[in-house]
């Protein structure tokens, strides 16, 4: 499935902010091939025939059931779809793996067990394990014989993960490390055979270890009582003088942060895919209820207030999904490029995910917040029935909430996205100074009043303007920082504004590229439905951009400069609003007619 063509002009991480993209450079879900379609059907069968019917048993934490279902997934080849063939994996490409993840989404809390095992559990060994460690553990993890968990968080270190207190000290005979400490919120802890544990060697060298179940001194806390994802096992892991053989050090001593952070990049990306899959299923239950439920002698789907909710769900999911598959394709191209240069399968995967760490952080926010929006509105459409545990809306609502918290809270991911971007700029990997300067110059010239012509010209212009706006705000802040007038480390509010703008841009441009591409294809629906999605989304984003830019600017600029910048805000948010009511009705009616999320 890996095709060997390598494109040379693939966007680098963060570059979407400063460079244009062509529709043909992206990948859209409507493009999946016959084989990917078959894979999707298999995953759907697995989710709806094996997992969904057992949700209530899973929620009660029935002994052995999660492992049994993971093993069924292994039989289908799903646990190793992203792993090397020599260990029993399938080596499928990134886009196919994204599709698999998304299709697993409706499996609720079970997806947490699945993702903890295949992602943060397995990837540290693939990325950083020695050949011996890979040969020892990966085949079992891929076949489902072994289950994995990832132990990073501690009671006193969550977002500040490197401040972990768990210690590792070399034994006197030099053959073992002795681990002492406490890990918290550990997914899969209840049934894991392998724990990826982070500890400070000699108290200050943050390092990864592979710790096997059954070692003396390794004990588990009780199952946590959680708001949602009750299907998944979450426990504390206690380490009291646990003797871990020296061969089980993962990667280099003192380089644990590389493992912890790199594994999270792809984890965030996958969280977006899982969230969107779950959200689509949730949206479908809402639409079906709206079609069935009659009030005032008609289905509530007939009412504008409900149509708005249905359309808005579709728009957000469509936009987030467009960004997800666009980034998926970038990661895939980077992967191929690295392998063509001679990198191993694991190295290429690691480098590709790291390259797009900014986009992965943004996607994590995008997917989790789209999901939260969708489950909330699905519950609202259900009214009182939504509040009852009899249906699925209440559980979906509870399950969703964790996604804004784990794999780095959305606040941490917002900070990270901007910090990584600025760091890339400082290192000279991303030229935002030049483009930012060009925008400054443009501000002092007359705006162009040329009439825009051609399909999607207005939307293309809007997206170009969003880029200018972000460069103006971020460039302005960076300049103040360099002049010593601003310390962005103390200005998280401004960073939040900028990261929101970065995400809105990523989604807006990806949606535009997808809709342009759909215009050239034989599609399921008339193009005007896709146009309605695009235009409504760009209208919404224009207003958000305006607000975020204004909020940021008034926080750190004053006087004449502020006036100039605010004129810039006006100039760069000029998109002519579409008739959003009519557009939303068109989108909602398409979904109501299909009786499901259908894009």
């Amino acid at each position, binding site marked *: 499935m890996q095709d060997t063509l390598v494109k040379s002009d693939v966007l680098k991480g963060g570059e979407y902010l400063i460079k244009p993209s062509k529709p043909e450079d992206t990948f859209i879900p409507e493009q999946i091939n016959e084989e990917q379609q078959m894979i999707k059907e298999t995953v759907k069968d697995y989710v709806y025939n094996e997992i969904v019917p057992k949700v209530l048993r899973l929620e009660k934490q029935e002994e052995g059931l999660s492992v049994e279902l993971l093993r069924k997934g292994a039989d289908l080849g799903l646990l190793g779809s992203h792993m090397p063939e020599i260990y029993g994996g*399938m080596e499928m490409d990134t886009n196919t793996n994204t599709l698999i993840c998304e299709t697993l989404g409706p499996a609720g809390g079970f997806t947490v067990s699945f993702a903890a095992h295949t992602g943060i559990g397995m990837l540290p060994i693939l990325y950083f394990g020695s050949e011996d460690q890979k040969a020892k553990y990966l085949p079992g993890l891929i076949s489902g014989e072994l289950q994995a968990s990832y132990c990073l968080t501690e009671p006193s270190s969550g977002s500040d993960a490197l401040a972990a207190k768990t210690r590792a000290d070399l034994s006197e005979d030099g053959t073992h490390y002795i681990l002492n400490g406490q890990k918290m919120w550990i997914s899969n802890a209840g049934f894991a055979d392998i724990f990826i544990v982070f500890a400070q060697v000699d108290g200050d060298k943050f390092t990864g270890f592979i710790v096997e179940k059954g070692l003396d001194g390794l004990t588990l806390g009780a199952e946590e009582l959680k708001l949602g994802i009750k299907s998944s096992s979450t426990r504390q892991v206690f380490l009291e003088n646990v003797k871990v053989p020296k061969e089980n050090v993962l990667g280099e001593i003192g380089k644990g942060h590389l493992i912890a952070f790199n594994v999270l990049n792809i984890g965030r990306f996958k969280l977006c895919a899982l969230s969107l899959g779950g959200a689509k299923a949730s949206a479908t239950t809402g639409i079906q209820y709206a079609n069935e439920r009659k009030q005032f002698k008609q289905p509530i789907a007939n009412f504008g207030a409900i149509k708005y909710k249905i359309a808005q769900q579709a728009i957000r999911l469509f936009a987030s999904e467009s960004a997800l598959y666009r980034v998926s394709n970038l990661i895939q191209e980077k992967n191929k490029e690295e392998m063509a240069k001679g990198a191993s399968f694991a190295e290429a995967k690691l480098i590709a995910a790291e390259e797009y760490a900014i986009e992965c952080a943004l996607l994590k926010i995008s997917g989790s917040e789209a999901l939260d929006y969708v489950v909330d509105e699905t519950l609202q459409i259900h009214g009182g029935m939504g509040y009852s545990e009899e249906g699925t809306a209440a559980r979906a609502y509870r399950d969703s909430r964790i996604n804004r918290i784990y794999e780095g809270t959305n606040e941490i991911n917002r900070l990270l996205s901007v910090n990584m971007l600025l760091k890339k700029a400082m290192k000279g990997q991303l030229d935002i100074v030049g483009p930012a300067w060009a925008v400054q110059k443009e501000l002092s010239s007359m705006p162009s009043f040329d009439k825009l012509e051609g399909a999607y010209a207005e939307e293309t212009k809007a997206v170009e303007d969003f880029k200018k706006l972000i460069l103006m705000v971020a460039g302005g802040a960076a300049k103040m920082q360099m002049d010593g007038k601003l310390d962005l480390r103390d200005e998280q509010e401004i960073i939040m504004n900028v990261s929101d703008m970065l995400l809105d841009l990523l989604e807006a441009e990806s949606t535009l590229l997808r809709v342009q591409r759909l215009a050239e294809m034989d599609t399921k629906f008339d193009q005007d439905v896709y146009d309605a999605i695009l235009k409504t989304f760009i209208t919404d984003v224009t207003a958000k951009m305006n607000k975020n830019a204004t909020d940021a600017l008034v926080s750190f600029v004053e006087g004449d400069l502020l006036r100039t910048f605010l004129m810039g805000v006006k100039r760069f948010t000029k998109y002519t609003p579409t008739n959003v009511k009519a557009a939303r009705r068109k989108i909602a009616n398409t979904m109501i007619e299909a009786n499901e999320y259908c894009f």
Partner: protein
Amino acid sequence: MKILVCVSKAPDTTTKIAFNADGTALNKDGVQYIMNPYDEWYALVRALELKEAAGGSVTIINVGPKENDTVIRKGLAIGADNAVRINSNGGSAMYIAKQIAEYAKGESFDVVITGKETIDENRSEVGAMLAEFLDMPFISYASKMDVAGNTATIDRDIEGGTETVEVDTPFVLSAAKGLAEQRIPNMRGIMMAKRKPLNVVEAVAFDDLVVPVHYELPPAKSAVKLVDPENMDELVRLLHEEAKAL
């Protein structure tokens, strides 16, 4: 054991069925196709089980146009060794049976299996006609089949019970529910499918004797009326006056 499984495609079970303006054919707009479940779940899977137990090969065959390759490759992904498509736009059951027989007669299959029917037109005809063309015995509606040596013991669903028969190979069998359990194609199977041979053979000339002239949808079901359990008189009145059931 050399087994031939005949597979057809059918509209997905969630399809909203509509016919063209003069009612002579299905309106194919937006219709998603699947492999006929009786062929996939029972005929093919039982064939694979027999091969796994005693060796041999499983070939799937379809009579249809190139678009059917998607359905055929699913069969390969589930585990068939190779596939044959008789290139044609299809026709009556007799036409299909004739095409399959023309291919099969030179291949000395031990067992030929069809689904008991295709879920779109429910004709249940191909198996019997194929047996006739191949001059083989035919066993319909098989819900269980064991093979020892050259002899198969087969349970057939009959009204209110089961009939057990014995038959020597070669024979033609139509598969009913119970013969096997559905298999989901795994990732490896899907990846392997495109490397397995799918041979395309041109159809032989055959004049169709049966031509469909008209299709019609059943009358739409009217809305359900709910009657309060306390109001039995109203129920009786409705059953008498409206439903005319009393």
